[in-house]
């Protein structure tokens, strides 16, 4: 296999182009995206880590088969996130099991979320993190996924639009509504802010 470090100066779009002729370049893309995509899949879906790995594998295979559909006007990351998102949606429709969701709620991510509210005082970080986890688990997928993309994956609105294949205005509305829903869920869990 090619060493990803040897090609660190090449952007994803060029590596994707090279992958069409040499599958080993596709391995470099997988190395670059496997952790991010696995983390993303686990956050928006209610599946086990093992199932998430299977989904990730399916995502990469689908990405490889559809490499020629990649439009260079998009970012490669938006394109592959879109494939992962679609795989999760397909899986969700087939298996509507509820398993607990796992979120990495680092202080930075909590701060990013809370900065969007008028929360002048955030006292107990661990209590807050737990409340956010419960709140996210209770939310509809369409709201949860935009929050995940915005605050965990740090995607801008255009990228979210390209990933979810929704107009920019709709993404903006979804994010606003998602924040309101999150606030409502937090209130239900007696978190005052």
């Amino acid at each position, binding site marked *: *296999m090619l060493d990803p470090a040897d090609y660190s100066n090449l952007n994803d779009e060029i590596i994707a182009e090279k*992958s*069409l002729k040499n*599958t*080993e370049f*596709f*391995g470099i893309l*997988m*190395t670059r995206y*496997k*952790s991010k995509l696995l983390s993303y899949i686990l956050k928006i879906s209610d599946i086990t880590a093992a199932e998430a*790995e299977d989904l*990730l*594998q399916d995502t*990469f*295979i689908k990405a*490889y*088969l*559809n*490499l*020629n*559909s990649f*439009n260079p006007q998009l970012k490669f990351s938006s394109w592959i996130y879109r494939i992962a998102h679609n795989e999760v949606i397909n899986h969700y429709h087939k298996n509507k099991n509820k398993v607990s969701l796992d979120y990495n709620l680092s202080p930075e991510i909590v701060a990013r979320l809370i900065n969007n509210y008028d929360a002048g005082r955030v006292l107990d970080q661990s209590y807050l993190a737990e409340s956010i986890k419960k709140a996210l688990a209770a939310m509809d997928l369409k709201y949860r996924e935009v929050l995940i993309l915005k605050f965990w994956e740090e995607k801008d609105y255009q990228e979210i*639009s390209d990933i979810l*294949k*929704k*107009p*920019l*205005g*709709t993404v903006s509305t979804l994010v606003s509504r998602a924040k309101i829903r999150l606030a409502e869920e937090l209130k239900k869990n007696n978190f005052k802010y």
Partner: protein
Amino acid sequence: MKDLEKRVLEKIEGSHMRPRGRWRFLWKNRLFQIIYFIAIISGGLATSLIIYLMVNNDWDLYQQITDNLFNFIILTLPYFWLILLLLLVLWGYYSFKNTDAGYRYQPLKILLFSLALSALLGLIFFKFGLTENIEDRLAGSAVYQNLNLTRALAWHHPEKGILTGRLIKIENDYSFILETPDKKDWRVEIEKTGPTIAREHLRLNNQLKVVGYITGANIFRANEIRIINNSKKIYQKQ
């Protein structure tokens, strides 16, 4: 997790997978663009017919059948073309949404844009006289006549001096038979002392509108005869 890369690459090689051809994705996008184009052009034709039918709606006669202008408009709207236009715009919307960039636009904007484009094309087609040709070709079709039955029925009030129907028989230079929308046969007569109707205007299956009065059981004396949906007078009593 280096295993993951290895597993995926082994699966790709083992199953002899290759990326699907670019043409496949280009063609899908192009096909939806073509369908959108067809939907908009067709919408333009439908719009031009709506404009044509409303312009040639015999507005000078409406008070013979109703006092209420609003009611008259509601009765004589070309519903078939309006519904067709709506379906075409929706079809165009669906096709546009399925193009590569379609997701970037709000549904309402796509619908309004498609409608506006069809309306503009409709005006152009109408202005260049394309619509009259289409209406003429369709007028003789029984299917089209059935689709426009409500409009024909709206006008058909022999008791108020307006008779509409399909020309089914020419008896002589001064009388012919119309099959009216309620499936009755009426004889239409014109003055024997006056001009006759030019034969090129009297083609079987023509839809006619006759202004006049009842003279007997299913017999109507014409003061004026027009081609329906056209307002063209083919006979005027002297």
